[in-house]
């Protein structure tokens, strides 16, 4: 997994890339959670994520919950087909913010 972060005004967009599994979830959380804790609206762009398992889904859930705790939005953007399939299998499409 690789990533880049672009910040504009109070919105931070995290572009994740590659395959997200247990091996890289700590890295993903280290990037995303501090942005939420800083009170930014965080957009997680998933267009270049080819594979995500339950560990990756846990990052999305924890980010969403941290966003609620900090009263800021965590939005999933441009979700790839394979990741959307896993989100839907977990029945999270009505819970996570998807735009």
């Amino acid at each position, binding site marked *: 997994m690789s990533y880049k972060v672009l910040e504009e005004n109070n919105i931070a967009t995290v572009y994740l890339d590659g395959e997200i*599994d*247990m*091996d890289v979830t700590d890295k993903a959380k280290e990037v995303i959670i501090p942005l939420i804790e800083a009170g930014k609206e965080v957009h997680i762009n998933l267009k270049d994520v080819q*594979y995500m*398992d*339950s*560990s990756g*889904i846990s990052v999305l859930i924890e980010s969403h919950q941290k966003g609620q705790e900090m009263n800021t939005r965590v939005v999933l953007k441009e979700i790839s087909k394979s990741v959307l399939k896993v989100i839907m299998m977990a029945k999270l499409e009505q819970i996570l913010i998807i735009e």
Partner: protein
Amino acid sequence: MINFSEHKDFEVNSGNLKNVRTFARGLFEKSEYLQNYQEELVLALAEAAQNIVKHAYNGKASNDTMRIKISYTEGLLEIELFDKGKPVVPENIKPRNLDDIKAGGLGTFFIGQIMDEVIFKTSKVDWVNHLILKKQF
């Protein structure tokens, strides 16, 4: 119809999960039927392999190996995982309650959604845990 049975051993660590997926994809591509379900099948296998690292070895890297065996015979896919970690207590394995928004148990839930049958065994002489995932095509 193409039939095959292959296995490969991997050291137990989270960095090897990617190699497990690569091994599986290479085999699933051999069959047109399996190819159509490749993403889901790889997810089911990877979740089971992840459970070995996470639960049988408490998330710690080990020099032990886990064995992945994938067999496809007359439309029946069998994915077998062998490990020498902490013995699995099948009664303790519960898929996530979907109303409870947390990640724990999600992998087990995915496996159940994708595969037809999940069988735990502990009787193998050379291994401690033996998990069999089956799906009929």
